[in-house]
């Protein structure tokens, strides 16, 4: 059974029920009840060294290179990181503090008290089999205000952490494997 662990909010709300769990990640569970959290995530395999990948998540400038046009990060006070989400109507700023930083293994941030969104963002790295590189798993657990209705409203405003996470990981893979991010644009911006 899953242990209750603040770093694994997907386990929250499932209580301590004695129940055999399969090997699938918690976010793939058929239940909709993650203790009020929406839990999304994605794994990609990147042909690169875990230390190199980990560095990418420590540097806001490099992080911004993969986040896409609707999401960016800014350095906050101390070691805090502010995630800025551009919705169709306004910007949502979420201040987070690091909760894990194990070089080559894991990096995670959790929203601070009073943040507009209750969220945890976690990146875990594992060596991939057969020399394929590193399996990079990004995981976002968030609790929108006003529960499911708030979640649906967020989706309508263009906030889709699942797609944003998936696309960010794919950009990271492109950047680390090829040195560039694929684009069909025929001309430089500007």
């Amino acid at each position: 059974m899953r242990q209750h662990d603040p770093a694994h909010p997907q386990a929250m709300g499932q209580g301590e029920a004695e129940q055999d769990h399969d090997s699938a990640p918690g976010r793939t569970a058929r239940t909709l009840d993650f203790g009020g959290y929406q839990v999304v995530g994605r794994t990609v395999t990147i042909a690169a060294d875990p230390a190199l990948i980990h560095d990418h998540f420590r540097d806001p400038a490099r992080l911004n290179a993969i986040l896409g046009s609707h999401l960016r990060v800014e350095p906050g006070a101390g070691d805090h990181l502010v995630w800025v989400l551009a919705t169709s109507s306004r910007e949502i700023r979420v201040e987070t503090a690091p909760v894990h930083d194990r070089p080559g293994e894991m990096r995670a941030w959790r929203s601070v008290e009073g943040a507009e969104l209750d969220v945890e963002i976690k990146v875990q790295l594992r060596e991939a089999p057969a020399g394929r590189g590193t399996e990079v798993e990004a995981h976002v657990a968030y609790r929108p205000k006003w529960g499911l209705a708030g979640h649906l409203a967020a989706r309508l405003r263009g906030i889709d952490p699942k797609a944003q996470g998936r696309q960010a990981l794919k950009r990271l893979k492109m950047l680390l494997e090829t040195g560039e991010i694929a684009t069909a644009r025929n001309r430089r911006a500007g």
Partner: protein
Amino acid sequence: MRALTWQGKHDVRVETMPDPQIVNPRDAIIEVTSTAICGSDLHLYDAVIPGLKAGDILGHEFMGRVVETGPGSTLKPGQRVVVPFTISCGACFFCRAGQFAACDNSNPVETQEASELLFGHPVSGFFGYSHLTGGYPGGQAEYVRVPFSDVGPLVIPEGPTDEEVLFLSDILPTGWMAAENAQIAPGDNVAVWGCGPVGLFAVQSALLMGAGQVIAIDHHPRRLELARSLGAKTVDYRQSHVLEALMEMTGGIGPDAVIDAVGMESHGFSPDNLMDAAKQKIGIGADRAHVLRLALTAVRKGGRVSIPGVYGGLADKFPLGTLMEKGLQIRTGQTHVQAYTKQLLHRILEGEIDTTFLISHRLPLEQAATGYRNFRDNQNDWTKVVLKPGRSGADLLP
């Protein structure tokens, strides 16, 4: 620059478009000297492949001179290159395994979403095709931006003409891979449905691989004649019962391998589009699905089935029982062009393979729309059209 743009169903026009620039470090800009219209361009022309936008530049079979390179390119200005239609990074899991058409890194992340939803995994990037495959501007233009130019483009030595090497961009490797997927053993009987460019090159490749007898099936007299000129026997399905003919021509055993080079041409990528296409063109749609069923019925027990023909959606009445009870193997896929270009160029330079027999018409780029219309409407006579950017037409007369 001047470029052939898609505007809508049966509406393609040569227009003035902005010149491409180097965008990413590994890019090169190619000045196109020759570019061909492909059978799969007709899918776009007929608007049966979704994900095109008005103003998209078509063309995925092209070659030319390098005019500009990014800092990560290994090409040099002035080099003459043939460019594979598949855009491949050379570094991902699939590229390293030689499966270039499965590249994970060439389709921009935003345009990966649709095929990931549809097929479970995203498809790679192609030039001049649907936005499902990246929406990259294509090669029926004066200039093209070529990403990952250190991986795809094949440098051509001085000597061979454009027309001798142009088809390394798609249809020659596609025909070759179709024959390879048929796992031909010396002396095999091989049946090929469709004598379009890919079918004809599959005939040629199968014979080079040691097939004892290749039987080509079509109904266009000119195309059947080309197949015979390559050394194939032919069956005209308007004259003869194909199944019975194949059995009788293979000693009652059936062909050891069959190649479906027709595909469900009128059917696009998505299930709903497939339904539309079927509704629009009931006769053709039914015929084309019929080819694969026929091929599975014709092939001998334990035989091999190779499918280079393009399928994009769902097939109705797929004879799964035939497949299982006869113990058949199927191989298919978009062509891993980069895996074949070097060895096929070598065979061309050695005189083992000639591809120029296929070309029926040469037109200036400005007359591309005429080329599309005739290639679609007169398949017997218009077997392959080569477009020449920057040429007037008078200088293209033989």
